[in-house]
């Protein structure tokens, strides 16, 4: 039994579990904060009660999502030290300042003004309250900026030199605005918008299907559908840009994504395949001829580098190939459904079928986002920092038994919390109707 390999695999699974759980919640809060600002501003402008009703419902969703994001984020900040000390040792001079700036400029800002935003409506002026809402939205987006700057740097490192085995920064502008940062930031911000859009639409459709005809329901449903219909095509475009960027900087990842084994011109876009690492070929593959070259090089006969050029140094192909297709498949389905629903909304209503589909796809954004993150992070294998630090070099000395214990604890906790989160959101949706039917002027004394 190779204890060291066990430790490494367990540590990787634990990090994956922690960060997968964590990403679910900023995916919601980044865009939802701006949506809440939108609701508030619409109320301030029109005075129509439905916008405040929408705000009141979704601010509760926001509070819950934010709390889960914060506690899982705190956990993340400890992971570097507990399991991956080699990371800070080698690239600490880059990661350190970026993480420090995230906490100093963004985390404190959002955490502090959240209290005012959630509970301060009666204690501060309306303008101040709207400003607090803006600061929370700005803070969450700024957080994404810093974290993605670091993540992008790990994918396409720039602006540094290796001196005595440690990365030393030469140019901070190049570190932050490294070659893949703009594409990755845009892709993630749009992912958040799409995730929230489908949650808005899905939970509203759920209420609508249960006969809740309060005006905020259709308003929120509309907001969600239009947001999705607008951002989904943008996301396709953003994904394409990131793809082109990855062809240039991480060809092994692209080869795995498309399961291209031999370098070739006019590579087919495989819609289905079972990549086999033993034979270094695909079984049962079929696809669109020359389409991969078309997408990746914008030339039907363009050359795509194959996995055999990177033997021993490329990610697991089956996983990456299918995770990518999951992301794209879900994304295209989201685009189709949002356009269909937008078309129906021209008549101010949606069909039973579309309503049900929206409910089923409430959390489709989560699935697509996770799939995409797995593609890009596992796709960087065997590198933790591309061509600078291997994953195996960064792991700490903690033995497998300890890692297995902490991993077990986290997994149990996370499964419980995700189940609780989803069920509470639907519970709140059911209960919202009962609250509307209460006479106005009755405050929710105990938080309800």
């Amino acid at each position, binding site marked *: 039994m190779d204890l060291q390999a066990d430790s490494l695999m367990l540590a990787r699974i634990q990090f994956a579990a922690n960060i997968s759980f964590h990403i679910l919640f900023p995916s919601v809060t980044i865009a939802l904060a701006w949506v809440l600002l939108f609701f508030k501003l619409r109320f301030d402008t029109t005075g129509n009660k439905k916008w405040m009703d929408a705000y009141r419902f979704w601010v509760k969703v926001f509070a819950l999502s934010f*709390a889960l994001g914060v*506690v899982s984020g*705190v956990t993340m900040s400890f992971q570097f*030290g*507990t399991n991956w000390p080699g990371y800070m040792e080698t690239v600490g001079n880059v990661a350190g300042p970026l993480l*420090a*700036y995230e906490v100093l400029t963004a985390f*404190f800002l959002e955490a502090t003004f959240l209290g*005012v935003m959630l509970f301060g409506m009666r204690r501060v002026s309306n303008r101040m309250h709207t400003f607090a809402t803006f600061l929370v939205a700005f803070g969450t987006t700024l957080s994404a900026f810093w974290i993605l700057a670091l993540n992008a740097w790990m994918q396409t490192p720039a602006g540094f030199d290796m001196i005595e085995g440690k990365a030393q920064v030469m140019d901070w502008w190049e570190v932050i605005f490294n070659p893949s940062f703009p594409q990755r930031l845009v892709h993630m911000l749009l992912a958040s918008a799409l995730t929230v859009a489908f949650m808005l639409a899905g939970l509203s459709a759920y209420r609508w299907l249960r006969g809740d005809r309060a005006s905020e329901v259709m308003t929120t449903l509309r907001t969600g559908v239009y947001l999705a219909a607008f951002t989904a095509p943008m996301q396709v475009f953003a994904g394409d840009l990131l793809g082109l960027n990855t062809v240039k900087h991480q060809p092994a990842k692209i080869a795995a994504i498309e399961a291209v084994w031999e370098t070739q011109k006019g590579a087919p876009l495989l819609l289905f395949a079972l990549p086999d690492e033993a034979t270094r070929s695909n079984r049962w593959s079929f696809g669109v001829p020359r389409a991969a070259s078309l997408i990746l090089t914008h030339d039907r006969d363009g050359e795509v580098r194959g996995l055999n050029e990177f033997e021993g140094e490329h990610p697991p192909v089956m996983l990456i190939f299918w995770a990518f297709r999951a992301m794209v498949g879900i994304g295209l389905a989201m685009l189709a459904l949002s356009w269909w629903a937008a078309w129906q909304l021209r008549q101010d209503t949606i069909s039973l079928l579309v309503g049900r589909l929206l409910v089923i796809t409430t959390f489709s954004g989560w699935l697509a986002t996770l799939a995409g993150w797995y593609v890009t992070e596992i796709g960087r294998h065997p590198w933790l920092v591309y061509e600078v630090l291997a994953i195996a070099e960064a792991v700490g000395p903690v033995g497998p038994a300890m890692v297995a*214990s902490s991993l077990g604890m986290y997994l149990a906790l996370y499964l419980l919390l995700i189940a609780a989160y989803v069920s509470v959101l639907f519970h709140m949706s059911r209960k919202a109707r009962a609250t509307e039917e209460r006479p106005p002027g009755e405050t929710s004394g105990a938080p309800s």
Partner: protein
Amino acid sequence: MNGADWLPFVFLGLMGLAILIYVVLDGYDLGVGILFWGNEAERDRMIASIGPFWDANETWLVLGIGLLLTAFPLAHGVILTALYLPVALMLTGLILRGVAFEFRAKAPSPHKHWWEHAFRGGSILAALAQGWMLGAWVTGFRDDGLGWAFATIIALGLAAGYALLGAGWLLMKTEGSLQGRALRWTRATLWLTALGILAVSIATPLVSPRIFDKWFSLPNILLLAPIPLFTAVLFLLAEIFLRRMAQDLETGNTRDIERWCWAPFACTVGIFVLAFYGLAYSMFPYLVVDRLTIWQAASSPESLRVILIGALIVLPAIIGYTIYSYRVFWGKARDLSYD
């Protein structure tokens, strides 16, 4: 003097400050969680007293650990791998405590009491784990019976200290019967905390000959005497205030209670600051006892400079808007609603 000499020192100061602020602020949050008890209205009021603040309070922990991570990466790795399980337990506690806030208010009513258990349990777990981590760190991660006993004492002591902070906070932020109960809690935890600090003060020099020498050699013992002396004074002062308030409560003298209800909390903060200073003095310059000094563990001066510039610009802003946030929610805790 070049950067490699004074930058680690400055960052030690910043990190220490962040951790001290965390301990005081989240101390009262966790303390309220430890004391979480009473009828439904009282429990709601206790939650309301910390609701707007807990999130930002916890951020100081992220800053403290973040500074350890970024300024002293070698120490960060050694400390966190040595404290692997206590850290995992603390995080479990903090996760449960944080989410229980929201879930108790939004989950179906039959589930509410489960989330309240999670809130109390998470707070207790986080407090004990943090105390344990502190104890283990002081002994340089001794893995024997003595090390474990010491860590247990500190775990209980810190939990008592947090409960004292929480009780003092409730004394300020609540009224009526809940305030009366907070008064009783403050009196009880005051002496538990005193016991804890006494135990720590005796045990620490015994456990480490190096620390013994730092305190008990001349002229140090004379120069340092103010620390334990002022600590004792603060305890006595707090006790006097509490006794007066108990009398005022009996005679119904609410005016005087309100005049001084902040005093026990202030005394406790003073006690924590002194205890922190004593601990810092004992441990300096080691980040890992007898193994890593701050200079050995520090990042390159260039990184530290970059972070320092940002910190110096941003920290005043953070303190500014934090004060603003406390002013918005000044006064007695009112039930929290989103309206």
